[in-house]
């Protein structure tokens, strides 16, 4: 079974806000596949560009909203693709990352790529439903 997980708050619907043709998340086969999350204000949908630290915080808060609305949670993340705009910020990312997945952290890959709209961080997450 494949089910679309709708945005729990209007701002997290990037299709509506920015025309991104994607669902916020899909539930299938006991897993939840989330679209790449960026630092968006969950209430207004406004882009909140900032530092790697502030963007990563906002992203984790958004993922918490999204996953918990689907009956999952940050603790149930199994895999993360962490994208940052520059590898030089790797340790900065790690400092904030550690606060959100303190125990038994998920599998993770970090890469340095171009992210949409000038963001510095994007997290692509798969969680157990």
């Amino acid at each position: 079974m494949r089910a679309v997980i709708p945005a729990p708050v209007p701002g997290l619907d990037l299709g509506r806000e920015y025309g991104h043709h994607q669902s916020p998340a899909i539930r299938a086969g006991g897993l939840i596949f989330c679209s790449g999350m960026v630092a968006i204000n969950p209430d207004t949908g406004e882009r909140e560009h900032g530092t790697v630290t502030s963007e990563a915080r906002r992203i984790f808060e958004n993922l918490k909203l999204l996953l918990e609305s689907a009956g999952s949670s940050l603790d149930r993340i199994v895999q993360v693709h962490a994208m940052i705009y520059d590898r030089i910020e790797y340790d900065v990312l790690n400092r904030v990352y550690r606060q959100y997945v303190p125990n038994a952290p998920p599998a993770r890959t970090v890469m340095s790529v171009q992210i949409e709209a000038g963001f510095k961080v994007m997290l692509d997450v798969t969680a157990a439903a």
Partner: protein
Amino acid sequence: MMLSRQVIEPNNPAFDQSQQFGLLLSPAVRGGDFVFLSGMAAIDPATGAPAHGTVAAETRQILTNIGELLEAAGSSLAKVVKVNVLIYSMLEYENMNSVFREFFPTDPPARTVCGVKLIGGHKVEIECIALA
């Protein structure tokens, strides 16, 4: 419980990039409830040769090929749950997005798009996970 793992033979040998380009990969592997596809670049389904073009043209060719590959695996575009789109420049985001929309008219999959350096002179590469 041991889940099954099965390499999917593409219905069109042109999609087998291990044959075409000597790449060490299977185009599609079934594992558990899912089918995992390798990252696909635009290739001509008739010859297997690279089909370089605009971001829009490459996106269209890739998603057409992915649709065929999924059907060979008993799945379909409608069963795709997650897509990762790699493009050579995020400036071309909308050129990819508008074509992408045509292939997933309703309930689109979860998606992550990022700008990376691709091999082989391609502008777009797409990988996906679908329900079997």
